[in-house]
């Protein structure tokens, strides 16, 4: 149903956030939000949550594009296989 499709869309899109901290935040936040709301039974409330998730999905999509346009160097911890001082 629409809930699951939004969930899977959101979760696949977050992988493309170039900025590491936003990426890890988005992963964690979206997963926790879906977990928190999985027991909601009221259909009206479910619909509001799904609408909000769809809006957030749009936000993520646009911001991921912008992040890729203006990407910069990676963080220290993203290249842990390199020799460290």
């Amino acid at each position, binding site marked *: 149903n629409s809930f699951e499709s939004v969930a899977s869309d959101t979760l696949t899109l977050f992988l493309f*956030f170039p900025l*590491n*901290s*936003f990426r*890890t*935040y988005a992963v964690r*936040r979206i997963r*926790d939000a879906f977990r928190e709301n999985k027991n909601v039974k009221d259909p009206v409330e479910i619909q509001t949550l799904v609408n909000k998730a769809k809006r*957030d999905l749009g*936000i*993520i999509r*646009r*911001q991921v594009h*912008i*992040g890729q346009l203006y990407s*910069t*160097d*990676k*963080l*220290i*911890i*993203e*290249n842990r296989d*390199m020799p*460290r*001082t």
Partner: protein
Amino acid sequence: MPLRAPVQTVTFGQKGLHLLWLHVPSKRLCPLEPSFLRYHLNINSTPSAGTLSPSPLPPFTACQVSGVVFFPLRFDPSIPYTYLTSSQIFPSALWMPCVHSCLRSYLATPFHFLSVGDHAPQSAVPADTAAAPEAGPVLRPLYMDVQATTPLDPRVLDAMLPYLINYYGNPHSRTHAYGWESEAAMERARQQVASLIGADPREIIFTSGATESNNIAIKGVARFYRLRKKHLITTQTEHKCVLDSCRSLEAEGFQVTYLPVQKSGIIDLKELEAAIQPDTSLVSVMTVNNEIGVKQPIAEIGRICSSRKVYFHTDAAQAVGKIPLDVNDMKIDLMSISGHKIYGPKGVGAIYIRRRPRVRVEALQSGGGQERGMRSGTVPTPLVVGLGAACEVAQQEMEYDHKRISKLSERLIQNIMKSLPDVVMNGDPEHHYPGCINLSFAYVEGESLLMALKDVALSSGSACTSASLEPSYVLRAIGTDEDLAHSSIRFGIGRFTTEEEVDYTVEKCIQHVKRLREMSPLWEMVQDGIDLKSIKWTQH
């Protein structure tokens, strides 16, 4: 004008073949003749006197599909081309398809001859080619200084962009749709800020930041009531802008009491009550200190001030959106809000000025009477929309963030304290905002530890005072010893801080503190059991 092509050398295949490539839009537009390419690649002939003809271009092949031109370089790219011979021409038919598909996947945006240098053109002369694209870039340090500023939350940027691109009207233009839509956005943002702190939207005035809000609050209130009330009270650990405003008011003839703080960083309420005089107009105490993270008892102070009919101002720049604040429950009359501390844009803030009972404020900035006459000047719609979005996001995420930041903060403190002896946490451990941790490492100099921790962006005090060599006045006010005050580092944990970053910071911190302590003669003396306070230092 000569367009310079970028040089990308890609290691491809088993033989470690380097390919220098440039993208040509169409064979018809740019004939692939050597002189043309030589011109565009800035390949010069070797400066030897006897040479009459220009050096031959290395043999190249072009992919018909992508228009990519390949120059196989089987040599050290720093040596200019003069000696490639025809025996090094590769049969293009053999490797073209696989090269094309492999390279497509990891080549960067190709350079187009028709576009001028906005792809950071590097010299085409092989002398300064980069190595394979993945290795070699400067890696950015981890950001652990959220008290100085915070990154823009993507949701905030998303809200701001339409007002930077299309909806650019002045919100004070009353006569057309551009003005109306900007005004609607501004009012919506005002509502968002107000609902975060439990205020009415008419009580929020947008300013250029918490510094301006503090100036308006302190100077505005003091000057309005200057005929009957000439006294103000503040604390010794306030932000520099509050202390400086009070100092300038002293020059105008006001009296200011700077309340001392206890060792924990919290003010003594009895001292506050004793300091309030009949002619006190304002008490200013910050909610969460930006250097040591201490939370002052705002509700109690509000109660005391309202019972004694004194206005209460709080600088809540570090507290808004992080801990629950309600201006009515806490009896706050004026509050300063900063945009860039709550994942909003820099250059915007707000001041809350109570209307019931009305707090009168003399305006600092004269002009067209915008913002109820208290702060004239065009309200920057994109920035205030960003501030409003940041406040809304903060309201939704407050509980989640607080839980996570507390957990990460515990982790950082526990891991450092259990591996290193003689580490002191400055500030009360109980009334403390977990995202701001100030630790003093004994026998280690703070600046040298910061230099050593170059992979992590940290600070040893507030950003405003970090240029001077003196230890922070906040640490001096809480009674820290001089040597411990010099060795303090402030760790900031925010919404986007990950466990990996905290663990890395802890690891590096422990490693460098141990190393610096081993170099320290004071540490040696302490290990030998000498009490440092009993030493009489002589001068030579």
